[in-house]
């Protein structure tokens, strides 16, 4: 009797009992269930929720692996100095980097999944419905958007908060207004700001060593710019693009995020409209700021100067903007549903992200706030898009009621007009 059969038998034993959803979940997580529908017409398709979630997780794996290596690389570079002639194989993909990264990053992943799934199971048992797959992606996103040294108990509290208040109270997967992963990030940011921002938290042991002779600093690029110290960091353009910079675990490599984004577009899991329009929005806001600097409307000692001067397209390759656009703005539950709505929704996410980045030095990264804000507005945008469509059709209907005789030739004209 194989594992599958075993699971099936256990499941049958618990059928109708209180704990049934928990056993069902384990079974369906590993195998497709034995039951088949016998009557009625039904759609056969492989792209169920589980498949969708797994595709997103697949797209996140490169970011996670890169994050593991980067955690080690940033730590050793901060301690021993950056290697002069950097080569990926020699300095980046090493066992030391991997080992250090693994022991700092994997606990985050384990806590995120452990706490989140435990809460999902408890709620499923209490409410008597099946365990939902919704947490699978959230659980992977969470460790990627926090600093490496986030204390695990903080993460656990934040995950509990995000899953319960961000999702379960609204009715679980598919009913939530706010993206749960970003709710968790926002909670961490406001609850424990010293652990979520500043120049100490982005590199492993940065906080522990602060104030001692071995102090290390790992200021992010946005952090430098916000303090008008743009000239002080030594990261090259390719460092920024490929991600050899300090930052939250999985957000640094714009290159891998780009690949992940293409993968999601290719598999039709995420909306390309949101990604494209969000990039356009970020570039537009960046261009406006660059224009303000070029027109010399703000003096150089202004505290916004450093970030405003930053070339507009570089906003896309530093900080969490790219990660947010590809993996979180495209969340099908909390984003806009209509195609026109997606353009507006995405554009405003990019636009507001860069605006918050520049205007609020207290929040060096605005993308999570921008996405949460637009999550709230998404239903409103959809409402007006649908209303606009209804009105357009009503107008068409009104204009088309009096049909002239075909002999007059106007019917053809009308057809062209209303097409």
């Amino acid at each position, binding site marked *: 009797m194989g594992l599958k059969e075993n699971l099936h038998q256990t499941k049958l034993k618990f059928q109708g009992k209180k704990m049934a959803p928990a056993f069902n979940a384990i079974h369906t997580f590993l195998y497709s269930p034995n039951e088949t529908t016998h009557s009625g017409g039904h759609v056969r398709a492989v792209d169920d929720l589980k498949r969708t979630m797994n595709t997103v997780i697949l797209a996140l794996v490169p970011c996670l692996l890169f994050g593991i290596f980067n955690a080690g690389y940033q730590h050793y570079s901060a301690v021993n100095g950056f290697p002069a002639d950097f080569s990926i194989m020699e300095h980046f993909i090493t066992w030391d980097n991997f080992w250090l990264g693994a022991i700092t990053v994997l606990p985050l992943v384990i806590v995120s999944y452990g706490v989140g799934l435990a809460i999902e199971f408890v709620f499923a048992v209490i409410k008597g419905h099946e365990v939902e797959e919704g947490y699978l992606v959230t659980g992977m996103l969470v460790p990627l958007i926090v600093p490496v040294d986030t*204390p695990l*108990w*903080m993460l656990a*509290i934040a995950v509990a908060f995000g899953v319960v*208040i961000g999702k379960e*109270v609204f009715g679980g997967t598919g009913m939530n207004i706010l993206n749960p992963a970003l709710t968790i990030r926002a*909670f961490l940011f*406001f*609850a*424990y*700001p*010293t*652990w979520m921002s500043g120049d100490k938290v982005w590199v492993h042991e940065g906080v522990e060593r602060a104030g001692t002779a071995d102090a290390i600093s790992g200021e992010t690029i946005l952090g430098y710019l916000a303090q008008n110290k743009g000239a002080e960091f030594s990261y090259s353009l390719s460092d920024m693009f490929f991600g050899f910079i300090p930052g939250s675990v999985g957000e640094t490599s714009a290159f891998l995020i780009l690949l992940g984004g293409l993968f999601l577009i290719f598999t039709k899991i995420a909306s390309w409209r949101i990604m494209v329009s969000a990039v356009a929005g970020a570039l537009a806001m960046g261009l406006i700021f660059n224009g303000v600097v070029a027109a010399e409307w703000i003096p150089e000692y202004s505290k916004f100067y450093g970030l405003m001067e930053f070339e507009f397209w570089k906003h896309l390759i530093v900080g969490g903007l790219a990660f947010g656009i590809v993996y979180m703005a495209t969340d099908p539950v909390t984003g806009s549903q209509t195609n026109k709505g997606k353009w507006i929704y995405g554009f405003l996410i990019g636009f507001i992200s860069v605006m918050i980045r520049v205007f609020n030095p207290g929040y060096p990264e605005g993308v999570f706030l921008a996405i949460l804000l637009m999550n709230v507005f998404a239903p409103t945008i959809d409402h007006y898009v649908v209303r606009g469509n209804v009105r357009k059709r009503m107008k068409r209907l009104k204009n088309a009621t009096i049909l002239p005789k075909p002999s007059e030739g106007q019917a053809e004209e009308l057809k062209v007009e209303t097409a």
Partner: protein
Amino acid sequence: MAILSKKDANLILDPLADNNPITIQVLGICSALAITAELKASLVMAVSVIFVMGVGNVVISLLRNVIPSKIRIIAQLIVVATLVIVVDQVLKAFAYELSKTLSVFVGLIITNCIIMGRFEAFALGNGVWRSFLDGIGNALGYGVILVIIGFFRELLGSGTLFGIPVLGDPIAKTGLYSIGYENNGFMIIPPAALIVVGIIIWVQRSRNRALIEEA
């Protein structure tokens, strides 16, 4: 409750549970958000509102046959404003430090929806004794929620209760702080109060399902 008949007792007990002004009627939310970061402020606010509502309901009930209905809102406002000024002056005289942090919000008791709501809904149509009980009951219901929110926000946000550290010293790293615990800055900011109110509403309604509104 031998002193009060069952009907009268319900005037006090109902607002404490199944007809709570904050969690059921969703009134007085503004002050529940604004001043509950500290337990002390919550408590003073609760006591102030109990005073204003108790006396205000009595005054309005006494005047209920005299006030022309066209200008009753203004008349009610004058009564509340007078009482609020009394509270404010008392605070300034006896708790000056507290009055500095609370003064804006004490002034805002005037706009507390619960007060005008009870004047309109109860005191204008009922006798003095019953109005008094209703006022006290509703203010108590309001105060209880305020104190609960204040308790959690101060405990989790600052690690203190009434300003006394109960979880240890965050700077010297004693008590809970020695094992890495940190205060939750989120509880200090007003949105946290909304979430605490939400959780109270959630708990209350899942204990008594009759309270759940129909969607």
